[in-house]
């Protein structure tokens, strides 16, 4: 067994983890190791061959492989150590990491700080409870993306997509481009879960019908998927039987949500937020265990990789400051609680006076709203669940904030003139 002492361990070599490692190294930390279970760095980005990445971070329109290769190159240039094909089995509150790979065998790392950057995974059929048989041909959008855009396989010819999340919309376009027919995208909500840019450019451009307030009630087929039954739903999301109809297809793609991957966080006893599914963090991205930081989709699911990179940089910088003993002592803890029309807010805790950026997820779309953070009011023209609401609190606004133990964050209608 290999035993080593290191300064910072970064768990996961995707957009968040690479940004964290780079920032920590730039802050003067020498002994950093990135642990990655895939056979290359980059996380999900190598399979995201569509453009639209980096518009905010680089002011350039890149695709996934191009965006992430800039960070991989920087990791190489800064000679940051990384271990591929390496599965982390456990982390402890004492920051001991147990991992395994085929070169080192069992690996035990004692770190001074840990950055959690494990990302998220997709909800599968099991989480939905759709009735019917269990044939081949039902896969998540991300799996289809990996098969088509990295491994070079075509998963099917006649496709139905359940859920209008961004990856599902993007795969609808890819399926059409590769010669398949996409029969419909079925969405239980009255609005799309993905960005409107993707609704226009992935569905409308290719005349793919988007069925709102519809769901799939039955799956048909024995060896291979043969058809799905779709139905309109009522206000309580209950299928209306008279509206049922069958669509012939050989492939069902699920794009029904992402879940932060936190088994390792739980093994370290880190407190999770039931609204985000990720660790509760403060403005330094520090979790409930001192010296363990989190960033990216493991904390809460982002819609833009540019924001994931920024969160990674913040967590990496904080981890470096922790190792160097430069992190300011935590003063009063203000807990941020999600109020009206707010599904979640990150960070969940503010503990000092330094500027902080809040990321909120709205529950439902609204126009001309005011976002309230305690006694502060920030007007916004529109909030939509697919796009995170970003609120920057400067030192000056923080001064105006009434320091109660708990602050409610809510989104409400603007009072009329």
């Amino acid at each position, binding site marked *: 067994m290999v035993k080593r002492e290191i300064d910072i361990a970064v768990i996961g070599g995707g957009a968040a983890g690479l940004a964290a490692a780079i920032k920590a190294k730039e802050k003067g930390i020498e002994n950093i190791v990135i642990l990655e279970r895939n056979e290359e760095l980059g996380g999900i980005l190598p399979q995201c061959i569509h453009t639209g990445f980096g518009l905010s971070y680089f002011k350039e329109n890149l695709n996934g492989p191009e965006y992430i290769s800039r960070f991989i190159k920087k990791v190489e240039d800064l000679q940051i150590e990384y271990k591929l094909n390496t599965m982390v089995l456990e982390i402890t509150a004492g920051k001991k990491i147990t991992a395994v790979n085929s070169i080192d065998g069992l690996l035990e790392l004692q770190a001074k700080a840990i950055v959690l950057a494990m990302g998220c995974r997709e909800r599968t059929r099991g989480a939905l409870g759709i009735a019917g048989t269990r044939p081949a041909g039902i896969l998540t959008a991300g799996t289809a993306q990996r098969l088509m855009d990295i491994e070079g396989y075509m998963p099917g010819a006649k496709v139905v997509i359940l859920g209008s999340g961004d990856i599902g919309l993007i795969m609808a376009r890819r399926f059409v481009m590769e010669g398949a027919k996409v029969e419909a995208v079925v969405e239980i909500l009255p609005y799309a879960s993905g960005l409107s840019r993707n609704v*226009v450019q992935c569905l409308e*451009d290719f005349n793919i019908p988007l069925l709102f307030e519809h769901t799939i009630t039955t799956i048909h087929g024995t060896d291979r998927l043969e058809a799905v039954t779709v139905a309109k739903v009522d206000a309580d999301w209950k299928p209306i039987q008279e509206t049922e109809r069958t669509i012939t297809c050989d492939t069902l793609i699920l794009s029904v949500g992402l879940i932060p991957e936190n088994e390792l966080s739980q093994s370290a006893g880190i407190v999770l937020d039931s609204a985000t599914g990720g660790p509760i963090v403060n403005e330094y991205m520090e979790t409930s265990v001192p010296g363990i930081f989190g960033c990216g989709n493991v904390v809460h699911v982002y819609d833009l990789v540019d924001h994931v990179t920024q969160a990674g940089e913040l967590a990496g910088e904080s981890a470096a400051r922790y190792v160097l003993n430069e992190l300011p002592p935590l003063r009063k803890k203000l807990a941020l609680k999600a109020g009206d029309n707010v599904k979640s807010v990150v960070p969940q805790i503010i503990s000092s006076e330094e500027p902080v950026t809040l990321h909120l997820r709205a529950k439902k779309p609204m126009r001309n709203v005011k976002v309230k953070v305690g006694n502060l009011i920030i007007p916004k023209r529109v909030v939509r669940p697919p796009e995170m609401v970003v609120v920057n609190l400067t030192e000056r606004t923080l001064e105006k904030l009434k320091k109660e133990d708990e602050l409610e964050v809510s989104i409400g209608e603007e009072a009329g003139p």
Partner: protein
Amino acid sequence: MKKKEVRVVTCIICPVGCRARVTIENGKISKIEGLECPRGEEYVTGELEAPVRDFFTTIRIKGAMTPILPVRSTQPIPKDKIMDCILELASIVVDAPIKAGDIIVKNPLGLGVNVIATRDMDQAKKGENSAYLAKS
């Protein structure tokens, strides 16, 4: 006789997502309603007169760790040329190694853009065991 039609275009410039009702008379835009800003007007006009899209797909590659290479166009191309361009690239096979930015196809269909590789693809070493099982 005057030909008049109304089309609805969703603006994608910002998260507000205005839905513009555009009146077209004799092939010319005569009225745009429902937009909240001038940037939207520019987008909607372009979208109706000459819509363009970023173009990206994959092509086959031999001798690399994976059997396909992601590529994109250097500039957006006309929306109605996307499927033609996809077919134009369907038969192309390149050999590893490839560097990101390498021109894969010069000026396809005379569109005035190049199609470039978007990632490095090293040659797979002999006996290298890839989970991707490159079968080329």
